[in-house]
């Protein structure tokens, strides 16, 4: 599944891992991450993320 990178701090959202500390279960695709979720490291919204190219 497509990973997404935070444009502000570089945190990478990996759908395989999700963000369980903040209520996003492993296996959650980017489109299913809640709109009010914020970057766990720098607090910006989903709008500040871009598709991550490895």
């Amino acid at each position: 599944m497509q990973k997404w990178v935070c444009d502000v701090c570089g945190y990478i959202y990996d759908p395989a891992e999700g963000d369980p500390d903040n209520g996003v279960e492993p296996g959650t695709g980017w489109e299913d991450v809640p709109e009010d979720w914020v970057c766990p490291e720098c607090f910006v919204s989903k709008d500040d993320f871009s598709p991550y190219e490895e």
Partner: protein
Amino acid sequence: MNTTLCDNVEWVGYVDWHIRDFHGYSTNRGSTYNSYLVRDRKTALIDTVKAPYVPRLLANIQQHTDLGNVDYLVCNHAEPDHASGLSAVVKACPSAKVVCTEKCRKALAGYHDISAWDFEIVKSGDTLSLGERSLVFLETPMVHWPESMMTYLPEEKLLFSQDAFGQHYASAGRFDDEEPCDVVMYEAKVYYANIIMWAGKPIAKALEAASAMEIGMIAPAHGIIWRKCPERIIEAYQGWIVCKAQPKVLVVYDTMWHSTERMAEAILDGASKPGVHARLYSVRKNHITLLATEVLDAAAIAFGSPTLNGTLMPEVAAGLTYLKGLRPTCKSGFAFGSYGWAPGGAKAVNEYLQEMKFELLREPLEAQWTPTPDILEECRKAGELLAEKALESACAV
């Protein structure tokens, strides 16, 4: 004052003996804004100071070299305590290029008119040769801001660590072996708790990246330089990034007519077991800077508020809002408080604890009007839960 880190590397910053309020952080021992001059065939200045202290910075530089000889102004961090002086320093050092990350350039553009500045944009792993020696850059996003980086001088095993490993601590000595180490370590802990507790994961990444470097000395952007025992502060950080718990219990509260206070004292009584450090803090009598420091390595915490106008007391809300942003991890506890005719305070506190992902040891503990002997006994039992958790947490690490 000895300001020499090693051959041709000098501290040229400013000691702020008088600051007592650093954007709300109670800086009881003042602070310093550290700036370092590295001279080789090229000369680099690493970080600047708050704008009002630029004349002192420039005078310090001029004791070692002419301002026209400064080739590089390395900006590790765009926050005004280190970079608000940059505009004046750029003007004073006409040959100098500003060396920073691209994100830092953008942040600086938000604070300064950078249209006439000459930039050299760097990223992790880039090396800038100064002649015999060189500067290597390590981006450390969120330690402290997204644009932040550290600068390493490999030939001297010297890390300019920016805010990491810093302390708000004004002193005549510049080095850890010139100041009382326990006081400096405590101020490093206060600094960590109040400035970067929320950034445990980014700090862990930065520590891992830095572990590839041989580090003989750490020169942070505030406070003393770790020359004698850099490993001691690194080891402390390894514990702080996971909020490693001591067998410590806190009972933090506010009160109107002493009912919640009596509950707090009964909880403290229950928590006061052998091997447990139990402490009582009124939020109105203690600064949030101290409370955040205590929370960093506490295992279990009870927060109490009476009900005022249907909700929690403003000072408790302020403290919890501050702590929520600092994001302490792996804490347990519960909420308590008294009320008159309609409950609300303890429940509102409980919501904060849920948001902070506390392991809740029990439901909110409430007393109507004043705590009865039964309620006080329940408070003591609840305090015992805190003590058990504290002993368990401390054994687990």
